[in-house]
């Protein structure tokens, strides 16, 4: 329904665009969207202290412990602050902590807190607030989506939360000591992640009730909403807009020159795009697909690298292989051939359109290895020579008796179904894959399901091939590798779930366990490469491209930056 609305509105707006084009007889470009008349780049704005921005629809939660969306995270990083934060160059810098020390075994972090930290209500904030907040975030009462992040602590369980020894504040509140279960090269990244942001104990506890063990303190603007970051929520018209105003008690308030952030809340990127064009918004975090070709011409169009991979997965236990007469080994060869038959560059150029890079690995390019280097050091297949890939795919199919190179045709009917959620871009990608496979005679049909149903079907393994995608929460390969352990809720390919198969998936589970406990970072990186190799060797995971993150920002705004995890930082923005 919503999808339908968006496309209908798009059609309507495109029709309007055509009318507008008709007036200026010279404009015959095919980019007949509402943006056909690209406005001149504005280089200055009268109001230097207000920024109007749009990220997405209203996030489910702005309580940093409960939030699990990227747009909610953007609001969190601008209104709360953890021990660490990201600088404009993507590096981590101390924030609420002034400095930190790591023990030799890498298991104990000691943070020295900055002096004079205050909450937005003027009360002082110290290490004990972090103890309270982390324990709360990981507690069973809060039952946060991201509670798995607390698995890094030695005494954490889902039933009891954190233990008293996991995180300890000194008497004077000046130091915070954190004990980890095993070496965690991304721990400082986590310290800049919303789940680990401090929340105000008084505000939270006051808003709790017998029915509400979480606390409704962050459900509305007002006195209850206490934070420690650059902006404090001053008004919230649900599903319409929010206003954040500068928090004068923020330790770094001197460097905040934009005093008001107005946030538009809508799910419709066409509506936001219109407001951007009328100048009512200064920043939009997404651009309607139909407008991308026009928008890209503008100097206001920006692309950020994203740490994430768009891919699809084969169900390892699908009966597709039996029906084709393939044993487990042959099935692997079959999947390998499919992986080679896809023209990834075409998908990036015509569907993605924002300069996505074709993927040749599961772990995205740009992800670090936890040992000072980039993780990606291989290509599981060539992405430059599509013709050669197709030739290789044909000979692979021939080797399992499905293809005859002499007649250049399949020897039997090969049909299966591609499952995706019913979003235009995903369906288009399915259609591109369909066309690539049809070129060798493989008949792939596309099934669309509504998002919530789609997730259930995929999880239950009721599919042959399904669309997948993941943007990393933190910059470490284990974040993606651990999705495929046998018991993981994301094990959509059903690895290790059919004991009649000879696939040894207990070995993969063990690999992930070893990665989690390995103290030697070089060895750990090596183990992660082995795990990715083992995963990719099933050819159940077929990467298509690495995500990127297009956004638009007016020419008069400087100093807005983002991270590879998709967070956007506005507090150092300046307006010309």
């Amino acid at each position: 329904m919503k999808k339908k609305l968006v496309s209908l509105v798009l059609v309507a707006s495109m029709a309007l665009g055509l009318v507008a084009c008709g007036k200026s007889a010279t404009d015959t470009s095919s980019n007949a969207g509402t943006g056909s008349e690209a406005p001149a780049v504005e280089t200055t704005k009268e109001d230097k202290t207000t920024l109007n921005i749009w990220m997405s629809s209203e996030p489910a939660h702005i309580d940093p412990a409960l939030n699990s969306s990227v747009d909610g995270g953007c609001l969190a990083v601008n209104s709360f602050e953890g021990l660490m934060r990201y600088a404009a160059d993507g590096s981590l810098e101390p924030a609420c902590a002034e400095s930190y020390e790591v023990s030799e075994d890498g298991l104990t972090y000691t943070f020295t807190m900055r002096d004079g930290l205050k909450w937005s209500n003027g009360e002082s904030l110290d290490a004990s607030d972090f103890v309270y907040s982390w324990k709360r975030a990981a507690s069973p009462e809060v039952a946060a989506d991201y509670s798995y992040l607390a698995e890094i602590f030695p005494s954490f369980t889902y039933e009891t939360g954190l233990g008293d020894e996991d995180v300890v504040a000194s008497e004077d509140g000046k130091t915070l000591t954190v004990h980890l279960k095993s070496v965690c090269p991304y721990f400082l990244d986590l310290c800049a992640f919303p789940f680990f942001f401090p929340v105000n104990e008084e505000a939270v506890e006051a808003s709790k009730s017998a029915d509400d063990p979480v606390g409704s303190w962050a459900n509305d603007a007002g006195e209850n909403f206490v934070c420690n970051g650059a902006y404090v929520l001053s008004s919230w018209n649900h599903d319409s807009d929010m206003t954040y105003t500068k928090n004068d008690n923020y330790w770094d308030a001197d460097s905040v020159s934009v005093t008001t952030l107005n946030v538009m809340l809508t799910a419709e990127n066409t509506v936001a795009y219109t407001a951007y064009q009328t100048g009512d918004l200064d920043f939009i975090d997404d651009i309607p697909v139909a407008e991308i070709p026009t928008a890209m011409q503008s100097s206001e169009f920006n692309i950020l690298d994203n740490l994430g991979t768009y891919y699809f997965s084969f169900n390892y236990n699908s009966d597709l292989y039996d029906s084709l007469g393939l044993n487990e080994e042959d099935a692997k060869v079959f999947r390998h051939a499919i992986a080679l038959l896809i023209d990834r560059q075409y998908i990036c150029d015509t569907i993605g359109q924002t300069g996505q890079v074709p993927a040749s690995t599961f772990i995205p390019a740009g992800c670090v290895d936890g040992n000072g280097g980039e993780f990606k050091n291989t290509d599981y297949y060539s992405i430059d020579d599509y013709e050669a890939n197709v030739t290789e795919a044909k000979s692979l199919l021939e080797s399992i008796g499905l293809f005859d190179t002499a007649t250049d045709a399949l020897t039997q009917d090969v049909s299966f179904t591609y499952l995706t959620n019913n979003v235009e871009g995903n369906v288009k990608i399915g259609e591109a894959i369909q066309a690539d496979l049809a070129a060798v005679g493989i008949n792939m049909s596309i099934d669309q399901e509504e998002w919530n149903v789609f997730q259930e079907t995929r999880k239950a393994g009721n599919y042959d091939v399904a669309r997948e995608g993941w943007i990393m929460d933190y910059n470490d390969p284990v974040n993606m590798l651990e999705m495929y352990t046998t018991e993981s809720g994301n094990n959509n390919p059903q690895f290790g779930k059919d004991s009649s198969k000879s696939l040894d998936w207990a070995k993969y589970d063990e690999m992930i366990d070893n990665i989690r406990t390995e103290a030697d970072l070089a060895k750990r990186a090596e183990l992660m490469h082995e795990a990715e190799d083992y995963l990719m060797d099933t050819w159940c995971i077929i990467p298509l491209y690495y995500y990127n993150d297009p956004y638009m920002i007016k020419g008069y705004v400087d100093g807005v930056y983002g991270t590879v995890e998709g967070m956007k930082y506005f507090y150092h923005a300046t307006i010309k």
Partner: protein
Amino acid sequence: MTKYVVKRVLLAFATVIIISLITFFAMNAIPGGPFNKEKAVSPAVIAQLEARYNLDKPLWEQYIIYVKNIAHGDFGVSLKNGREIKDIFAESFPISAKIGLLASVIAIAAGLVLGSIAALMRNKWPDRVIIFFITIITSMPSFVVATLLLYFFCMKLGWFSAFSAGENMTVLPVIALSLSPMAYITRLTKTSMLDALGQDYIRTAKAKGVSSRKVIFVHGLRNALIPVITYVGPMIASILTGSMVVEAIFNLGGLGSKFVMAITNRDYTLIMATTIFLATIMVIANLITDIVYKVVDPRIKLD
């Protein structure tokens, strides 16, 4: 009359209960759940959440708990964002109702006037002009109207801001919402007015020398109103509870979008609340419609 109203209220109550029952079991029957996330949430966390919201109990028990809570005025909290359902309604319904009420008033007033004019000046140019525009408006869904308004008044003319924090647009959404019912009321009024004006009693009234104004308004329009009232009752009910499309385009944060959002999110408590709310408003609107019949036309017997 009183007996009739009591009977109808009881019937309305039963209708709402049946609707809630069907909705409750239907929404639980469709695949998906409120805690599905792209990154699967750990089973322990899901179990905690299900226990908190009683979703771990058998369905019939869940329904009984739900009905009991409602009887105490407790509609629960949204499973998606933990906010009280009554807070969600308290802030979003007035937004939709304000726009809806204004749109209804405009649609009814303009529809009656235009329809009467068209009927009285049948086949003359005012009739033709009105019918021409009415036909165009009827064939344009509200989202097209809304998009057109946004395009011309916000982008081209710059009379209104497409986004302004803390301020909801009123004029454009009211226009977008009122045009289509206005067109329908105009057509209805014209047809039934023509029908009424052709009746014997009109001729009688005229023959008795009643002034033409009185003939039109007291004898003509009053009798022509019956079909219009039949349409207007449910129309007001649906327009008051908000239009998803118009609210999305003008970023209003009204109740309209909640209906669809609730289902997409499998937000069970919100699905129930929106359904019961809409059902209640609908049966009330129908009840009022029936009573108004009686007022307009005393010949109608209610029992």
